[in-house]
Structures are given as C-alpha cells and as structure tokens.
C-alpha cells in the first residue's frame, strides 16, 4: 500500500532527477568522516550502547558499529550519532 502511495512522487523525483527519497520522505544520511553521522528523517532507536547503535528510519534499518558511540541529539525527525564509526550496515 505504501509503495503505491509513494509512486507518483517517485515518478516526479525521477523526472526532476532529484536525490532518491527526497520527496517520498526517506531518511537522509550524512557523514562527517567516520566521527559523526546525521540522520535526517523519521528515526527510532532499536539498540543503543557505546559500541553499537541501531536506528530504524522507516525505509530501513541502519546499524552503526564502532567505539564510544553516543546519540548526541535525538528528536522526532533527526538524530546525530557521534563516536568512532567503524562500519555502517543497511538492512530492510
């Protein structure tokens, strides 16, 4: 149902050559080296400790693994993760 809902926006996004997920409300992930990750979009925390943070963005799950990881800021539509990020895994 959700796939059908986003289809016209996806067409428009493709036609205008906009980044994937910009109009359909997908999460936008931005990295500053491997020290900070900014997730722009709806996100909920699934797992949290200083070596592993798992975030559900609605369109998928992002898993950050590393050292001294912390959620620097968390609100309903963004999250900032800081620490020494070693790996980032994406799962549906």
């Amino acid at each position: 149902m959700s796939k059908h809902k986003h289809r016209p926006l996806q067409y428009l996004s493709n036609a205008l050559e906009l980044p994937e997920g910009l109009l359909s409300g997908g999460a936008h992930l931005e990295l500053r080296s491997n020290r900070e990750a900014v997730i722009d979009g709806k996100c909920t925390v699934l797992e949290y400790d200083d070596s592993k943070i798992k975030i559900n963005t609605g369109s998928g799950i992002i898993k950050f693994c590393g050292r001294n990881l912390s959620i620097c800021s968390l609100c309903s539509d963004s999250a900032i993760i800081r620490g020494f990020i070693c790996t980032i895994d994406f799962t549906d």
Partner: protein
Amino acid sequence: MFMLWLYRYITGYVKFEAIGGFSERFLNLCAINGITVWGSSLKDETLIGFMQVRDYKKIRKIAKKAQVRLKVQKRYGAVFIIHRYRKRTGLAVGFLLFFAILWFLSSFIWNINIVGNKNISSQVILQKLKSVGVYEGRWRGSINAEEARLSLLMEMPELSWAAVNMRGTLATVDVRETVKPPEKTTADFPCNIVAAADGRIVSIKCYEGTKEVQVGEAVTKGDLLISGTVELKNSMTLFKHAKADVYAETVRELNCFIPFEQTDRVSVRSPKKRSVLTLFSVDIPLFLGSVDEPYDAKKTVWNPEINGVRLPLCVTTATFQLKKEVKFNITQAVAVDMAKKQIDEMCKQQLSPILIKKLEQTCSVQPNGVYITQKFLCKENIAKDENILINK
C-alpha cells in the same frame, strides 16, 4: 550554535540520568512526544543526557512506560539562578534600579561636541547653544534638533550652516562659517591726499592726481598734498582717486615718568585651594567658608575623557594667593633705568614702522621721580586719503 545554547540557558535545562529499564524505548518515546534529548551517552545501563526543564516535567509517564528511574544530576540556566535568589528582593530592586538609572541618565545630553569651526571659538558657540536651549544636562527629549539648528543660525550670522545631531548622550554640532565677501574697494571714489602729520616734505611719488606741494615745503596736519581733480587741456575737469607716497621729516615725542615711591603686590601666607565638583552639570563645592580679598586666583579644570569622550564630571580647582600692597622706594639710577626701558617699549609699540633718523633724550630729576623726554626725528609717509564731496 551559540544562539541555541543561549536559548536553552535562558529557558533552563537539566542533565538527567535514566537508570535501568529500556533506554532505547525511553529515547524513542521522547522523540515521538516531541522532546529533544541531546548529549546522551550510555554507561552501565544508565542513560545520561540533557533536556529542557519544561520537557523534563512531561516525561514522568514516558519514564514509567520505559521502566527507567529518572534522576536529575545538574541544573543549568538563568531560571534556576533567578529561583535561587527569589527571596532576595534587594537584588531584584537593585537590578531594576540599575536599568532605571541607566535609562534616566541616558535621557540627558552629557556632551556637546563642536566640529567644523575655524575662526569662531567653541566656547562662543556653546554659549549661543545654551541660549537656544542646547546645553549639557538638558533632557534629550525636550530638544528639537531642527528648531535648535535654525535658532543657532539666527543667533549667529557668522555661521552659514549648522546641524545638531544627537547620538545617545552626545550632541554633535556641525557648523560652517560664513565666508565674508571682499570689501568694496574705494579706489573708484574720488579723493585728495592730505597730510596726516606736521612735517617737512622730503620726497613725493605721485601715481595719480595733481601735486599741490613741492619737496622741501613745510606742511601742517590736514594740508592738501595731492589733489584728486585733474584739469584737462579742453578745460574739462576729472575727479580721480589720488594715489601718492609723500615722505616727510616729522618730529615725535615720548614722555615717561617713574616715581621714586613704588608699590608692589606681594604674596602673603601660603596659597589656598578650593575645588568644585561639577557632576551632571550640578556644581558641588568641596569646601567650607570663603576666601578674603584681595587675592590672585588661578583656575585649573580637570575633565576626564574616555576614548575622546568627555565624562559628565569635572573638578575645577582655584588656587587663591592672598596679596598685599607694599610701598617701597627706589634709587635715582634704578628709576632712570626703568624709565629708559619703558621708553624703549613705547618706542617699539608706537614707532615700529617709522624710520627714525635722529633721537634726543632729556632726563630731569624731580623731587618725587625721574622724568624722561625723548624726541625723534622721523621719516614717514604722511599721505592720507580724504574723500572729495561732490554735489550732483
């Protein structure tokens, strides 16, 4: 970032710890309910983070749902400082009083800066400004800059333009002085040249007009030397502005009398100092009593400045030196010396542009003093313009 910190500091925020339970659920519930948590870290099943005070009051239910125990570690922000001192009314009154005094004092003109004047002194302009209602210590709101500007121009015709600019407690008065037109030349008016003093003519250089005297003739003051009327061959008469240099030998005399009995003012006792503090245009005397006359007074004004801006306070100190008149006698030789010096001074002042050919000095000693007469044989230009009155 600073603005965000400032906003959070003003509204107040807390450092909390959420012990046990489900930290992730707690964070998610906070996010869903629009509560921002920042600076979070997880250590030994304890979540430490920051949130705003108003949000902290809302999270009891969330904490219960996530099964975490909440504890405030530290409080930050102005609201907590205000709350801490809520019973100290003096502080609040002082705080309000500070701003009230600040507002009150900044409502006056404390400094007047005059710019653009070259020949007219700033003091004269300040006096005129005072008469039109702009002076130090005046309520700023009661000054109409445009009206003051026009009044100043009316009061001082020597100013061609003026502007009164008020910036804070400083009034800058910008002025431009009137450039006077050159005086109308009198060269076109017909005039004669007459003798300015008695004497014997030595040389005549006539540029315009008709010579009426010859070299070697003796003339008295007011005699016609060069006539401005020129008769042409066709019996026509022209009136011209006579121009000539008429040099003559003249005799001048200077007299000086120095009495043997002299008076002088001598200092009595040590000088007395009296100071007046002028604070916000109000004079506050820093002394008691008054000083007996006669005295010589010297004034010194101390007006502190910060970055070229005068402060509205100054200390005027007057040093009063009590004086007494004392009579004493001088010898004849001293009196003659003094008389000669005085004659020399008079000569420098009165006869400086005149060529002195010969001088003769006579000194007579009288019972009460010395009398010196000095006669000068001079060579000077005695030409003086005198208008010809013509009835049309």
